[in-house]
Each structure stands twice: as structure tokens, then as C-alpha cells.
């Protein structure tokens, strides 16, 4: 009974935190974009603020911008064009956000495992952890495809088609890129993979090619530049979300950023040692160490998110044929070679 | 047959016409610039712009002997063996020099000058002049003055071509304008108390190749390149002068004469020139009216047409007689469709000619080769210009239509007498408010005797105010169609304006009543039908009217009217080209947009 309440509580806290984080990620993204372009970015919302009791504050960096953005999303007119396939049209953004949220269930955002003061994971001890993440994450493609189809709009439909091809293609190298780490750790459980990295070396050292493949495929999976072909504004005027407005559009937005968070967590867990940091080890089970581990993880994730944004504002979009070439002619063969080599080396070392 | 050589190429000139070098070169597609020459005026050769190299070819030896000096083209007879050079360096240098001379004292006020856009100085300055100006002395400044109540003279723009002076002396024989003083002080002026107020005075404005003589009515209102020109016919008298109706933004701004040697030569009278204003009259009917419970109420076009049809059919069904009045302001096509409509309602319908307004007698200006002429008149073909006392454009055309349908032409007076006897249960009057006959007296006489009265008009005349149905028709500017002038010449007029809101062109009204099918009715198609149906109009076969119009056949029934012959002078080809000064051709495109 208490376990269930605990889990529900965790779900609440995590989902709530995620939503809040996503809101601020949009601000961060806008700031990063501005800085990369020699601009300042949003800096007005929050200035000259008068709180109750006449307290005047001056928040820097446009810290209230997310609230303004969110309010805008909610208050805008929700246009449903007459020619859309209504049930699917409404369903699509829901799928996008649900899939993005569900994937987080097995992501450990702190130390997990027996003896820990608390399991920093919504569903701890799921053996197939990483497979679950991929399975759920792949459902997100339905959101995009259905949105494109239901919009009954050529551009949206093209965006949906591109998305299905892209996501399915990049599932393959994405899945294979982590197999090296799975082989090394001998488990699909994300907690155990982190523990292995703590005891040996970080995944990025053990599996540099795997890391690169995972990063690239992860970008593709999140539909972000340089792989944002499904929505490419210039060619497809927004692609699958052309016909969406107000909070339905906002849900796609939320889904995308939650995906970014999930991918960042996975990268950190699989290749950057998760909570691992000099001075922290899997044996420490105290509350302080747990908090430190959560913070370390969060710090690494923050860097990953920043990296993803940084790359977005650096690289131009791939051409569609280059995108498919990259997946099938470069990433998949490379992942196979990496997998075979890893397996061979492990076999050699273990004798 | 004369063969002349222009710039090294031999051309054959048509027989029968005595042409000068400018005219001959124009026929051959070569432009010789000129200012002072005008085909209707004697040659004075004082602008020197048309000077060219002239020589003669010896027919026996083929040897060419050139005149050592430049010779004015306007004075050079284009006879056999003449050699003309218009593009040599000598000629070009001369043209450039003349342009510089003419522009010495000319102010640079093209931005405020109404002539800009159709100005001889502007055009030739671009083509033959130079961009620089070497004159550094003070320019002669002459104040602007009025030569009449309607005409302003900006003397400092004048180039002393004396076209206006010759016009008043040679054409109107009134001689109001003179050249005063000499040399640099020469100016055009009138004697005190003798303004240029003859009935053709406005033509001096058209004659002026620059912006010196200006029409005060048009002064500073429009730029000429905004105006789109429509080939129209003046409806103010039975002469049917060819005019160019110039429109911008849904209003007419002026009438300019178009050359027609058989009708108006190069001129129009001042009364006709001012008649364009009627098309902009704010009092024009802006809606159709149907009388409901004793008061006329504005209704939509289709309701008014339906009310007309219902009313007339009721009358016919009850055995009442129907009469139609066809005003002499209607076009031939309108008269034909109206007659057909009323005859199709009831073959016994009586059709009558509307009142023919007459004001005074004909006033003819008959220039000859000598009176008032001072220069060389050997190229001039004098043609008379007549302002008719019959102030309607199409009495003969409508009469021909009526004669075809009725066998006779019933006049307004006799019809009015029959109306007053109560012979007719329904009366359909199609007119134009230019008819002064439909006054209170006529209304009082007609209304009590007629059960159902339809008035199709452009103004709320006293007769229209008591009518059961008022159909708002088109003014002369809003309708296309043909008119037959007093010399039985059929001429076609284009529409210059779109129909006003709430009105329909008369032709469309009749076409709807006749149920001729959807879509606008084309007057050319109707004219083609008229040409098939009525022998007198057979000359307009296929709805085609030549540029100078065509004389319709004389119907035996109306033998008295035998004015079929072309007026004055030797024959000019029926399809001959129109004369216009080269600078008066402004862009036809609306809004000054260039063609791309």
C-alpha cells in the first residue's frame, strides 16, 4: 500500500518536474539560440514585477517567459480545421506527449538498486529497462504520423511520411549502439549499467563509437535539428504540426522536449556514468550521497541538453537522401562492426 | 503615281492627294517633326522644326540634285522624283538647334503644366533635342492671362507657332487672337474686350502644341497620362462629332476632338466639349423605382424589370393598347431592341419617335482657301463644320428603325394627341433627360390618360416622377452603340464609363426584357442583327462600322432627306487613317502603368 502511494508520489513529482523543466527548456533554448546569433534573447518577462504587499522584484533573464509562453499556448484559439480527421487529429498530440512521458518510467534519475535509501526510479528493478524505453519511445512516431495523416494537408502528410521513415530507420542503429554497453554490463537494467560504469570505466571510454552512434540516432529520434525533416519549416511549412494550434501544438512541443530529456538521461546513464563521479561509488547508500548522486546526474543531463541545443543552432538540416544514407550506409554497418568487435574483445578478455 | 525617295528608299504615293513632305513621309512610316503645320491651316513654316534636305531626281539621267539649304517639309510638295533626307547629320543638328532655340525662354514647369504627357516640346525634346541648356541669361517671363472666360494663356510657354492665330482667322473667321510685338517680345494676345468666345474657341487649346493655351475647365485637375481614351461620339447635336472621351477613376474629364473628314474635320464646338459633364452629374438616377401605394420606391434592378414586364403583359392580356416612345437619343441598337420588344408583346403596339429638341438653326463655319488665309494654302482641303440646331444625335437612325417596324414615323406630337385621347393603356418612354419635353406639362397631360407608365431615363424628370416604373438607363458615356448623324452617316461610339450603380445600360434592359439569354449584350452583335433586318443599315454588315463611319442607304419612304453624299472636298478613303498630332498620343493604359 505505502509502496503504491510512494510510486504515485514519485510519478507526480517526476512528471511535474518534467513539465516544469520542459517549460524552462524552451527558455533555455531561446537563450542559447540568441547567444549563438549574437543576440540577448528573452529578457523582459519578470522585469519590474510588483508582487502583493507592494514588493517589487526584478527577475533577470526573462525568467517568467515560460509562464507567458504557457499562458499564450493555453489561451490561443484552438483552431480545428473542418477538413481534418477529427478523432485522429485530437489523438495525435496526446500520443506524442503520453509516449514521451511513459518512457521516463524506467529512467533512473539517481541511484537505484538494493540497499539504497530510496529508489530514484518510478519503476525500479525492471529487467528489460532499456528495451522498454525504446519500445515506448518508438510509439511517439504514431503521434507524428497520425498528425500528418489526420491533418489532411499535403505538407503535413509529407512530414508524417518522412517522420515514419526516419524514426524507423534510426531505431536500428539506436538499438544496436547500446548493445555494446549491454554486453559489457551484462544487463539491460539501467541501474546495473550505471553500477558497472562506476566499477569500471564510463561508457564513453569503453564504447566511444557506441556513444557517437547513440548520440546521432538519439538526435534523429527526438526530431531535432539537424534531423528535423518531419517539420522542416522551409520546405514543409511546419510539417506534421502545420494545422495544429494552441495547446495541441503545445503538446507536440512538450513531447519533443520530454524526448530531449529522456535521451539526455539515457546518454548520461549509458555512456557518461550516470551518477558516477570521483568520490561517489555504488557502495555509498546514505541520504547525502543519494542527493549528491541525483544532483550529479542532473548536472550531466543538463550538459547533454545544452549540447543538443548547441548542435541544433550550429548544424544545418540534412537533406532527406543524406539522412537515409547516413542511417543505412554508415550508422548501421558501424553499429554492427562495433557490436561484433565488442563481443569479440569481451570473449577474448573473459577467456 | 508619284515615286519619292525618303532616306534612300523609294516609295510610291497614292494617287489623287496633294501631300507635303510631312504627310508623305508619315504615310511611308518616317516621322518629320513639326509644330506650326496643321493640315487644316495654311502653311507659314515659322517653327522651322520640319526642315529637311530636299532634292530632285532627274527622271532621264537619275542624277540627284539637292537644294543646298534645308527646306521646310511642310512646304515641300511630295511630287514625283522628290528626294527627301530626314536623318542626315545636318538635319539632326538642325533639329537639335531648333529645340534649343524653342526652349530658350520656355519655363521648366512641366510638373504643373497640364500639357505634360501630350506636349510637343516634351516629346521632341526627348527625340530630337538635348539634355543640356546653354542659355545663361535671364529668361523672358510673361504673366499668365485669360484670353476668354474658358481659356487661359501661359505666354511664357508659347513657342509662337501661331496655330491659334491662324485658326481664328482662317477657320472661324473671327480673328480674335493676334501676335503682338516683335522678336523676343512677341506674344499672343487678344484686343481688350474682344475675348476668344466663338463657338469653336476651345479648339485653340487642342491646336496648341505646348501648354500655352489651356482649358480652364480641365486646368490642374488631372494628369493626361492617367486618362484612358475612348472613341466616342458627341451626342449634343445631329452632327455627331467624333470625340475622344477621356476617363479616369470612373469620371469623364474632357472631350477631345477626333479627326473625321466627313463629319467634324478636326474640330468640336464648345457646347459639345462641355457636354462630357453630364456623365458626371450627381443628379443622375442611382436606382430604379417602382411605384408602391402612390409613391415611387427604390428597388433592385431585377425587381424593376420584372415590374415592367408584369405591368405591360397585364395590359396586353386585358386587351389594352401599348405605345412606345423612342427618343432620338437612343442608339440604333437600343431602338431596334426596344421596337422588337414592344412588337413581341403586342404586334399592334404603336411606336413613335420621341420629341426632337431643336434650338436655333444650323451654324456653319465654312472656311475656304482664301478668306483670312495668309500663308500657303495649297495643301489645305477646306471642309465646313456645322453645329446643328437639332440637338439630338440619332433622329435619323431611330426613324429608320421605326419606319422598318411601323411603315411610317409617328411624331411625338401626334402620339401625344392620341395619348390624350386615352388610346393607350400602357406607355413606355425610353429617353435621356437631355430631352426638355418631358416637363410638368407633359407629365400632367400623359399621366391621367395612361394606366401603366414606364419611363426609362437617366434623370428624375417630371414625367419619371409620376411613372409607375422608372428604369435607370445609361448616359451617352455609359453605353456603346451607333448613331446616324444628320448626313445619314452611321458612326459607332464606345462606352467610356461602366454603368452607374443601380442602373443598367438601356441595351441590357431591352435584352433582359426580350429574354435574350444570360450575360451582357454586345452592341456590335445587335448592330449585326440590325444590318440583317433593316436594309438601310445593310452597310454595317457584321456589326462593323469603318473608322470614319459609313453613310446608310436612303429609304424610299423618306426621300426628302438626301444628305447621303460625303461633305465637301475630294474623296478621302472611307477607311483612311485619322490625323492626330504625334504628341497627342499618350499612354492608353490606365493609371500610368507601363506595359511590361
Amino acid at each position, binding site marked *: 500500500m505505502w509502496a503504491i502511494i510512494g510510486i504515485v508520489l514519485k510519478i507526480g513529482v517526476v512528471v511535474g518536474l518534467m513539465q516544469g523543466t520542459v517549460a524552462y527548456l524552451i527558455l533555455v533554448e531561446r537563450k*542559447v539560440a*540568441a*547567444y*549563438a*546569433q*549574437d*543576440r*540577448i534573447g528573452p529578457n523582459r518577462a519578470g522585469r519590474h514585477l510588483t508582487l502583493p504587499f507592494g514588493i517589487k522584484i526584478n527577475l533577470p533573464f526573462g525568467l517568467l517567459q515560460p509562464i507567458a509562453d504557457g499562458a499564450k499556448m493555453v489561451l490561443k484559439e484552438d483552431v480545428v480545421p473542418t477538413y481534418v480527421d477529427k478523432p485522429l487529429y485530437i489523438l495525435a498530440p496526446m500520443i506524442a506527449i503520453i509516449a514521451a512521458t511513459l518512457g521516463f518510467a524506467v529512467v533512473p534519475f539517481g541511484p537505484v538498486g538494493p540497499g539504497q535509501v530510496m529508489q530514484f526510479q518510478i519503476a525500479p528493478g525492471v529487467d528489460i529497462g532499456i528495451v522498454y524505453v525504446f519500445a515506448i519511445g518508438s510509439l511517439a512516431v504514431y503521434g507524428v504520423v497520425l498528425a500528418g495523416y489526420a491533418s489532411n494537408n499535403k505538407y503535413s502528410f509529407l512530414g508524417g511520411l518522412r517522420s515514419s521513415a526516419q524514426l524507423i530507420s534510426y531505431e536500428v542503429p539506436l538499438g544496436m549502439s547500446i548493445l555494446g554497453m549491454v554486453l559489457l554490463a551484462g544487463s539491460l537494467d539501467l541501474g546495473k549499467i550505471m553500477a558497472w560504469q562506476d566499477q569500471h570505466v564510463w561508457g564513453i571510454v569503453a564504447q566511444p563509437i557506441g556513444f*557517437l552512434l547513440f548520440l546521432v540516432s538519439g538526435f534523429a529520434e527526438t526530431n531535432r535539428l539537424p534531423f528535423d525533416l518531419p517539420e522542416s519549416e522551409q520546405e514543409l511549412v511546419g510539417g506534421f504540426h502545420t494545422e495544429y494550434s494552441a495547446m495541441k501544438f503545445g503538446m507536440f512541443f512538450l513531447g519533443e522536449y520530454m524526448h530531449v530529456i529522456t535521451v539526455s538521461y539515457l546518454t548520461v546513464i549509458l555512456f557518461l556514468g550516470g551518477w558516477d563521479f570521483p568520490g561517489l561509488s555504488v557502495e555509498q547508500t546514505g541520504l547525502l550521497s543519494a542527493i549528491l548522486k541525483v544532483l550529479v546526474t542532473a548536472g550531466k543531463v543538463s550538459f547533454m541538453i545544452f549540447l543538443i541545443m*548547441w*548542435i541544433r*543552432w*550550429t*548544424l544545418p538540416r540534412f537533406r532527406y537522401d543524406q539522412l537515409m544514407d547516413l542511417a543505412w550506409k554508415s550508422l548501421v554497418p558501424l553499429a554492427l562492426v562495433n557490436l561484433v568487435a565488442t563481443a569479440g574483445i569481451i570473449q577474448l578478455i573473459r577467456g | 503615281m508619284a515615286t519619292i525617295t525618303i532616306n534612300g528608299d523609294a516609295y510610291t504615293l497614292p494617287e489623287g492627294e496633294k501631300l507635303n513632305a510631312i504627310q508623305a513621309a508619315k504615310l511611308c512610316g518616317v516621322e518629320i517633326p513639326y509644330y506650326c503645320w496643321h493640315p487644316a491651316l495654311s502653311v507659314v513654316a515659322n517653327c522651322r522644326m520640319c526642315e529637311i534636305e530636299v532634292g530632285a531626281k532627274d527622271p532621264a539621267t537619275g542624277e540627284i540634285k539637292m537644294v543646298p539649304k534645308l527646306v521646310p517639309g511642310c512646304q515641300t510638295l511630295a511630287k514625283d522624283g522628290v528626294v527627301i533626307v530626314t536623318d542626315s547629320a545636318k538635319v539632326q543638328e538642325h533639329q537639335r538647334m531648333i529645340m534649343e532655340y524653342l526652349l530658350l525662354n520656355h519655363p521648366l*514647369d*512641366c*510638373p*504643373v503644366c497640364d500639357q*505634360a504627357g501630350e506636349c510637343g516640346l516634351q516629346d521632341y525634346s526627348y527625340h530630337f533635342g538635348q539634355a543640356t541648356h546653354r542659355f545663361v541669361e535671364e529668361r523672358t517671363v510673361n504673366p*499668365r492671362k485669360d484670353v476668354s472666360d474658358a481659356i487661359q494663356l501661359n505666354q511664357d510657354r508659347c513657342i509662337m507657332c501661331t496655330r491659334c492665330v491662324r485658326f481664328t482667322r482662317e477657320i472661324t473667321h473671327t480673328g480674335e487672337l493676334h501676335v503682338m510685338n516683335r522678336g523676343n517680345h512677341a506674344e499672343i494676345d487678344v484686343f481688350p474686350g474682344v475675348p476668344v468666345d466663338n463657338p469653336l474657341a476651345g479648339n485653340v487649346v487642342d491646336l496648341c502644341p505646348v501648354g500655352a493655351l489651356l482649358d480652364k475647365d480641365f*486646368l*490642374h*485637375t488631372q*494628369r493626361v*497620362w*492617367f486618362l484612358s481614351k475612348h472613341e466616342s461620339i458627341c451626342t449634343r447635336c445631329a452632327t455627331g462629332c467624333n470625340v475622344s472621351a477621356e476617363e479616369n477613376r470612373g469620371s469623364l474629364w474632357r472631350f477631345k476632338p477626333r479627326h473625321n473628314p466627313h463629319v467634324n474635320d478636326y474640330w468640336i464646338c464648345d457646347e459639345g466639349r462641355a457636354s462630357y459633364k453630364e456623365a458626371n452629374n450627381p443628379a443622375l438616377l442611382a436606382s430604379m423605382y417602382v411605384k408602391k401605394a402612390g409613391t415611387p420606391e427604390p428597388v433592385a434592378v431585377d425587381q424593376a424589370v420584372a415590374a415592367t414586364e408584369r405591368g405591360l403583359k397585364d395590359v396586353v392580356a386585358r386587351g389594352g393598347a401599348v405605345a412606345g416612345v423612342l427618343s432620338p437619343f437612343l442608339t440604333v441598337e437600343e431602338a431596334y431592341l426596344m421596337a422588337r420588344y414592344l412588337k413581341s408583346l403586342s404586334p399592334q403596339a404603336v411606336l413613335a419617335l420621341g420629341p426632337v429638341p431643336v434650338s436655333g438653326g444650323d451654324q456653319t463655319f465654312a472656311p475656304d482657301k482664301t478668306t483670312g488665309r495668309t500663308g500657303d494654302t495649297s495643301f489645305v482641303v477646306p471642309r465646313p463644320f456645322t453645329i446643328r440646331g437639332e440637338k439630338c444625335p440619332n433622329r435619323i437612325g431611330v426613324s429608320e428603325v421605326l419606319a422598318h417596324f411601323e411603315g411610317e414615323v409617328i411624331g411625338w406630337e401626334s402620339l401625344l394627341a392620341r395619348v390624350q385621347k386615352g388610346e393607350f393603356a400602357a406607355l413606355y418612354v425610353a429617353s435621356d433627360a437631355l430631352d426638355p419635353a418631358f416637363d410638368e406639362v407633359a407629365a400632367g397631360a400623359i399621366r391621367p390618360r395612361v394606366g401603366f407608365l414606364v419611363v426609362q431615363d437617366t434623370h428624375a424628370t417630371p414625367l419619371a416622377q409620376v411613372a409607375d416604373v422608372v428604369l435607370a438607363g445609361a448616359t451617352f458615356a455609359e453605353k456603346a452603340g451607333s448613331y446616324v448623324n444628320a448626313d445619314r452617316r452611321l458612326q459607332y461610339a464606345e462606352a467610356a464609363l461602366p454603368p452607374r450603380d443601380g442602373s443598367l445600360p438601356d441595351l441590357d434592359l431591352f435584352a433582359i426584357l426580350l429574354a435574350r439569354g444570360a450575360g451582357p449584350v454586345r452592341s456590335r452583335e445587335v448592330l449585326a442583327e440590325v444590318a440583317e433586318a433593316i436594309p438601310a443599315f445593310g452597310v454595317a454588315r457584321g456589326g462593323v462600322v469603318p473608322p470614319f463611319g459609313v453613310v446608310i442607304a436612303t429609304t424610299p419612304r423618306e426621300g426628302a432627306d438626301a444628305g447621303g453624299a460625303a461633305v465637301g472636298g475630294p474623296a478621302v478613303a472611307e477607311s483612311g487613317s485619322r490625323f492626330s498630332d504625334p504628341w497627342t498620343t499618350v499612354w492608353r493604359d490606365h*493609371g*500610368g502603368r507601363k506595359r511590361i
Partner: protein
Amino acid sequence: MNANHPDLKRMTPPKLSLGDRLYVPQVIAGLAVTARHMAGVVFGDSAITVQYPEDQHIPSPNYRGVHRLNKDESGRVKCVACMLCSTACPAHCIDIVGTTAPETELWGDREKYPASFVIDELRCIFCGMCEEACPVEAIELTGLYDLTGLSREQMIFDKTKLLSVFDLTKDAEPMRYGSPPSRPTSSTELVRDSI
């Protein structure tokens, strides 16, 4: 143009080195560029942003903003109603009604002037053709860029308003190729004045 046309130039794509084809070194080089820019903004002051209401952007001297109608020394409108600007205007946003100048002391030397001069600033595309066409340097485009209004009617500038733009800008922007405005004025004030 056929495939063998002599004017056609055949281009061969540049050969990519191994580093180029591996993407990764080039991606890192690109990241370095953006990183430099980000550092410039965060730690330096390379941001080009103008904090608008507090700081005013100073447009270049040939900036094409709100129109003005210039006045001559006697304070009369310089325009002579030649309508060349409305002829040149590709957006047909200028409407002029010309009339004969009165025979008074003030207007004696003038023949024609605009009784009404209206520019629809909403329809205008600010191409500057009117300024080019004007033979008397009467119409000019100023550096005023913050052109706002609360209704369409407010954005239709008549002669009075266009002349008041001249009064507003004549010090900052002297007629014809003057120095760039030192202290830009706001045309929003102008619109508000007329509400």
C-alpha cells in the same frame, strides 16, 4: 536553353577530405564557432541587440520610413501636385487632388498646389520611388520607423499629418541628404497626437 548551351557552366562538387566525410571533425569545428559567439555574448558584449524602448535604433541615413511633405522657406507645401509620385507608386497608395494656386501674395508665384495629399501608409511598401520621382523634392521618406496606429483610418496620412512629420523631423533630418538623425523621434507620438 539546351544542355549544350555555351553559357552553361558545369560545376563539379568539391572533393571532400576524409575529415569532411566523417562529419565529426567538421561538426566540432562548427560547434566551436557557435561556442565562440555564445561566449562573446555571455562574457563579452558582442550582442547586437538594441534594447528598443529604452535605446532607440538609429537607422542609416537612407532608411525609408514614414513620408513627409517638405515646406519651403515661406512655410508653404513644396509639392506642386504634379502627381509624378502617384504615377511612380507601385502600390497606388498616393492620392492627390491638385488645384490652382490662389492669386494671393503668398501663393502668387505658384501655379498649382495639392488641395489634398493623402498617403495610405498601410498600403505603402516604402520603396522610395515617390522620393525619386518628385521633381521639387517635396516628398521624402524619413527615418521614422515605429509607425503604429490603432485603426486603419489613423494610418491614412493626409496633408496636415504629412506636413507635421516634416516639422517633427526637420531638425533631426535636414532636407535632402542631411546627416543621420542624432536623436530619432518616435512617430508613435505622431499617431497618438491625432487620436
